[in-house]
């Protein structure tokens, strides 16, 4: 656990970057520090590994004040990932990952073995080990950065806007990867971002900071969206708070109909205005309008029980029929969530 105990950082020119910040980053959880620029989130992060020392207050790492530990020793026990990855341009990927093990005096073979293991763990081809960082894409470099931070298996990971410099598609996959890794590793992670969506997606708890370095609200993402503490937090969360809350509501209990499907090329029946054509492999082909022959129209899908209500609603809005197609892990149709079913689930969610 990382404890901020009334921590203040004041610079000689009088600017206050962090003002009497008190919060706890719980063991095995992701705590996100989020806020506009100038809110002191990066300063706060860097005070944990003593890249910056606080003017007042204490930071405790599992009860031990970090100020009592020699900075290089402290830092070797804390993983750190930064925005541009910060890889060493003159070292091969494998040696970049093995940096901290080398610093800790591991022999070369063991350090490189560990690096190769991590390369695969973060989803990279082991063939990249002998390349130099500039030969990798931005997303690959960032994965190497994460692998490097994990190399000595530190219990704590500090991440400073690690995914801000890559394009949105890569960012999403890196975020998903972090969630997957964290489920395996259970690190205590402090993650800094200016992107509230990223904070809500990744955080077990989210600390919203305001300019001047004060804590506006500390809460789990669901509570944050439902009950913003004040106007600043409400404004920072943005307009579509209601819609975004849906991402915390499971589609488990969404009622599905299985009588709205028809085999591809088969004849429609009954008097439903739309029927879903399903291919021989069980995957959705598209919606067929009754009495209007023609190409099937594209169907919006969501993974039933795994995706949130937000994804289900999105799928419904993308379908001409207004229904969302529920699929399993392999993309096979398990049923159709009609507008009525979605409406019931939304009403229930609003009440709960």
């Amino acid at each position: 656990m990382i404890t901020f105990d009334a921590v203040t950082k004041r610079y000689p020119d009088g600017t206050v970057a962090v003002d009497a910040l008190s919060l706890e980053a719980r063991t095995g959880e992701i705590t996100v520090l989020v806020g506009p620029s100038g809110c002191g989130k990066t300063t706060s992060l860097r005070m944990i590994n003593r890249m910056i020392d606080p003017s007042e207050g204490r930071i405790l790492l599992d009860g031990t004040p970090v100020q009592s530990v020699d900075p290089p020793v402290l830092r070797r026990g804390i993983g750190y990932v930064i925005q541009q990855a910060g890889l060493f341009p003159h070292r091969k990927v494998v040696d970049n990952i093995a940096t901290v093990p080398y610093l800790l005096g591991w022999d070369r073979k063991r350090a490189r073995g560990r690096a190769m293991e991590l390369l695969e763990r973060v989803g990279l081809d082991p063939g990249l080990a002998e390349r130099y960082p500039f030969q990798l894409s931005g997303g690959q470099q960032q994965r190497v950065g994460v692998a490097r931070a994990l190399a000595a298996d530190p219990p704590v990971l500090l991440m400073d806007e690690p995914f801000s410099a890559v394009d949105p598609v890569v960012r999403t996959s890196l975020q998903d990867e972090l969630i997957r890794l964290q489920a395996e590793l259970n690190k205590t992670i402090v993650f800094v971002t200016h992107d509230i969506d990223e904070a809500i997606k990744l955080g077990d708890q989210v600390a919203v900071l305001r300019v001047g370095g004060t804590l506006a609200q500390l809460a789990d993402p669901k509570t944050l969206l439902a009950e913003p503490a004040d106007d600043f937090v409400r404004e920072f969360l943005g307009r579509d708070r209601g819609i975004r809350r849906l991402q915390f509501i499971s589609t488990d209990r969404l009622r599905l109909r299985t009588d709205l499907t028809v085999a591809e090329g088969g004849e429609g029946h009954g008097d439903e205005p739309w029927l879903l054509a399903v291919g021989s492999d069980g995957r959705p082909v598209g919606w067929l309008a009754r009495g209007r022959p023609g190409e099937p129209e594209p169907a919006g899908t969501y993974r039933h029980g795994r995706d949130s209500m937000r994804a289900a609603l999105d799928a419904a809005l993308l379908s001409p029929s207004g229904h969302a197609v529920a699929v399993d892990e392999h993309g096979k149709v398990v049923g159709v969530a009609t507008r009525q079913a979605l409406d019931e689930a939304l009403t229930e969610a609003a009440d709960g």
Partner: protein
Amino acid sequence: MGDGPPSLWEWIARNWDTGRAGSIKDLLGDHLLMSLVPVVAGLALALPLGLACIRWRLLYQPTSALFNVLYALPSLPLFMMLISATGLSPVTVIIPLTFYAMAVLIPAVVDGIGAVPDHVRQSAVAMGFTPLRRLVRVELPIAAPVVIAGLRVVAVSSISLVSVGALIGQGGLGMLFTRAYQNPFLPPVVVGIGLIVLLALVADGLLVLAQRLLTPWERARRAT
């Protein structure tokens, strides 16, 4: 004797190793010493000075101004000035050439280390490098191509400038030129120029080789 001046090859064979001071072999050794000591000493002094200039930014302007002025001074008067202190010895040539080397190498060190991206330096700090280890393992290797480029300029110009020392009797292979001037005779001039150019090419080649071995990532970068 008596049948006219000796040919170039005869002259070389006769003067290569006479066992007396002033043989070609002797002059070559002097030349090497007087040109390479300044390069090594210049690097050894430019490194700490350059690092100090990075650490204390205010030092850089006055330091580089001072060395630029020294660089602008012609070598001959500098040699003359130093004679009173160091006499007619190789040191009189080595000292000014060391200053010239520093004038080139201090900016090379400052620029080379200054070119280390900030996020690279930050991440080295964050991973627990001590300042010395960060310098040796991260900053200097990344600065190496710029510093070696400076060394190549310094090595070649140093090898060429030593010959000016001949005017105070300490010129290495340059002595061959003054001799030829006193007694018009071509072979010593040809040998002097040839060996100086050869020395410069060898020194430059060795530095290029050193750069290839020390900075394999740069080669990978050029290949893409």
